[in-house]
């Protein structure tokens, strides 16, 4: 496969400078893979260059060339999951809204790539892929790169990263015109309404139509999970605080996703002070199932020592016989 004439012309014109960059990169990164770099230029950079106006193409190349070196040097490009995700981002998604990259392509591209890597690391590659899909479909609605960056947070939340819920709701309220489509709504008024309803109840499905379902979170570290011992869970306003061995986590769950974040013993101890009476909506454990007002969850664990804790919106079910925590909407 060869590169486009446009890209080849620029590389030829700046050949000594580009070569010098690569020589430096090989010193900086002893394992710098020149073959992977060439492939990345061909597969991911070239299609972008070809779409840039001729008067901006030179600057674009110089800017993105540095970024490509950094990506390859850090080993982020290759056959692994992260490499594939980044290549998909550059290949499939960015090409759809390339005009939004200008006039500072490397900054926007670096930010989007960082976001993808963050989502992949914290929420998993499925969330990263979903985020990219939303980006490809709806980023074009952004009028500028600044708004694009804001929309990226909404897409991240919608893709299943509940840690961004609060900031995403704020952005939705600020940019309802550019966000309603990505949320599956029909107009910006609904987006404004959603920013209210989901702000008060993270499971609210009245507008999104996303049916709440019981979630299972947590897995034994020996199997690649986060929990070294069966967890203990306490409710807190943001979700639940989890203790497993000598580690602590904050568990956040909402209608779009779930997330375990690092927490501390202090937060775990503070969480025990919280009281959630909610008298007439108490979850019910009966005949091996947990019933809430909205859902029923059949429990596949020994019922002795099964624990139920709840906050304003969710009930968490855990047991000393399991590493998994089940969370379901409470009201």
């Amino acid at each position, binding site marked *: 496969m060869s590169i486009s004439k446009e890209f080849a012309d620029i590389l030829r014109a700046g050949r000594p400078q580009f070569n010098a*960059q690569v020589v*430096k*990169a090989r*010193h*900086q990164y*002893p394992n710098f893979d020149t073959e992977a770099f060439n492939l990345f230029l061909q597969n991911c950079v070239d299609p972008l260059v070809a779409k840039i106006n001729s008067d901006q193409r030179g600057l674009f190349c110089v800017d993105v060339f*540095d*970024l490509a*070196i*950094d*990506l390859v*040097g*850090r080993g*982020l490009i290759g056959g692994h999951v992260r490499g594939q995700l980044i290549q998909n981002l550059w290949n499939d998604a960015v090409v759809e809204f390339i005009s939004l990259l200008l006039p*500072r392509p490397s*900054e926007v591209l*670096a*930010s*989007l*790539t*960082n*976001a993808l*890597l*963050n*989502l992949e690391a914290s929420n998993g590659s499925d969330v990263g892929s979903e985020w990219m899909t939303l980006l490809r479909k709806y980023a074009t609605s952004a009028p500028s790169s600044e708004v694009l*960056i*804001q929309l*990226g*947070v909404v897409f*991240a939340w919608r893709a299943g990263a509940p*840690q*961004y819920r*609060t*900031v995403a709701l704020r952005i939705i309220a600020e940019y309802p015109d550019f966000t309603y489509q990505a949320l599956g709504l029909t107009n910006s008024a609904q987006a404004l309404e959603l920013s209210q309803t989901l702000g008060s109840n993270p499971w609210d499905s009245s507008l999104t139509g996303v049916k709440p379902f019981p979630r299972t979170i947590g897995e034994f570290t020996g199997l690649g999970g986060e929990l070294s011992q069966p967890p203990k869970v306490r409710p807190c306003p*943001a979700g639940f605080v989890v203790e497993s061995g000598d580690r602590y986590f*904050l568990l*956040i769950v909402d209608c779009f996703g779930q997330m375990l*974040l*690092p*927490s*501390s*013993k*202090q*937060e775990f101890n503070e969480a025990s002070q919280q009281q959630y009476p909610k008298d007439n909506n108490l979850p019910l454990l009966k005949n091996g199932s947990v019933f809430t007002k909205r859902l029923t969850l059949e429990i596949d664990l020994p019922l002795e020592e099964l624990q139920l804790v709840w906050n304003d919106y969710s009930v968490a079910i855990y047991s000393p016989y399991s590493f998994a925590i089940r969370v379901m909407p409470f009201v």
Partner: protein
Amino acid sequence: MSPFNIFQRVSKAPTKPKATPRAHQFDVADLYQGPLESSFDSKAPPLALDEKLRQAYFWIVNSAIISPHYDIEYNDAPPQSFAVGDNKRRLTLPSGQSYSSYVLMPLLTFATRRKCLFVGGPGRGKTASAILMGVLAGYPVKDVRRAMQHGHPQMTIADLLGNPLPADLVNAQSMEDIRIAWRSWLGMRVKIIDEYNRIPTRTQSALLTVMGDNYAEVLNHVFECPDSAWYLTANDDQGGGTYQVIEALRDRIDVIVQALSFNPRFLNDLLVRIEEKVRPEEIVPQEIVFNEAEIDQMNDDILAIELPEPLRRRIEFFTSQFEMSEAAGAQFEYMTKDTARLSAVEWAQLIASESGRDRLKDLGCQTLNGLSVRNLMTLIVYAKALAYFRGNTAVELEDLRQVLPFVLNDKLRPDHDAPFFALPENAAYRSDGISWLRHMFDLSNTEYERLRLDQDDPVGDLQREFSQGLEGVNESQTRTRITKIERLVAEFCKGKKLYGHLYDDLLKLKYLHQRYTNYLQWLRSQG
């Protein structure tokens, strides 16, 4: 910053993350910050100085000095440990953030403005390390190099301190008229003396005045030096220099660090430097350079670090082990190694006349001398500095344990004829002074714990009672206290062997007894 400024990359704060609860409030930047340089990389607020010091440390170990020796070990959890070789030496993989003494101790010297001696064979980076410290203080590399004093056998006091101006020497009517051209290094906040053991003895005395009293004197003219960190280098600290270093000068040195050997597994790092023509001291990042006010502030902050009382007691207990020499004095107060040293009695003869104590168990038998006040002050300052460096507000036992060998190296001199060193398992301690000192501190702590001194310290109780002051204490109470002291002394003396810590306890009790006795007399005189 360009991704190619590889040698100028400073570790991202926090360099020593604490398990403090994180605010779970996400914003846009949380999504977009990452490995690639982006506009969302937080513009860091001004760093706390301890964080800046840690960044300086990590920049030095990562980019400047290739010293992959993590000999200052900290553990957050039980570490993995392996027995290696025929002698079953332990290789430990620390579970906490650990440090290289060769970089850390000079850096703590920089922060506390003390005096550090680098020892080690030629070409191990001693001088380069010292120059780096000068650059960290904000001086241009050229100035640091020019100000560095190179010891040589012909070095005169004028070479070291400065010359009288020739014209003034001819025209002056009095000494005051003679102006002195002081050497520029005297005014710097980092002073470097390369190969100090090659300086002639007479010039060493002039150096001693500058090091000890912080001023220089030539022809009755005095130059007051600013507080500064000192770095001295010596290829061989055991007499291999051209001149014997005078003892007072050696005693002024606060810590001694040894340049460990180069690990050829890191040859590639050297190769990159050669190919890139990189000299670390010339590319010190601006972010880790300290100005004068910052160094002053850092020093104040370090001194404000708390030394908890239980730790202070452990230092007292450890120190008590060494000075007492039962055979050296007839009067109780003179039963010290210092008495023996001043009398020039043969050490072996003195030891032979000692009996009763378990010479293997008694730590005092392992040393030829005790600790000076200066040593103790230095130990406390460096322990505080290490606690500060680790981002703590109080010294921990491990901080003390880690700095102690570097402070007491060359200060607490081993008696290699002691029974302790004759044991095969202790043979390595003859040459490895650092490990020996740390081992002694461990033994001292074990004994301290065995005696349950944290829980039961009657001398400490009496001291606390006395510290509350004598205001309002009547004659009867004073008599009660005196009796209490006398009973305790009697109990201590009953059938017990005299060890160092007991000796110091008895002297302390005598002191308290005397203070109460004087007070009692004063009370009586008041009618």
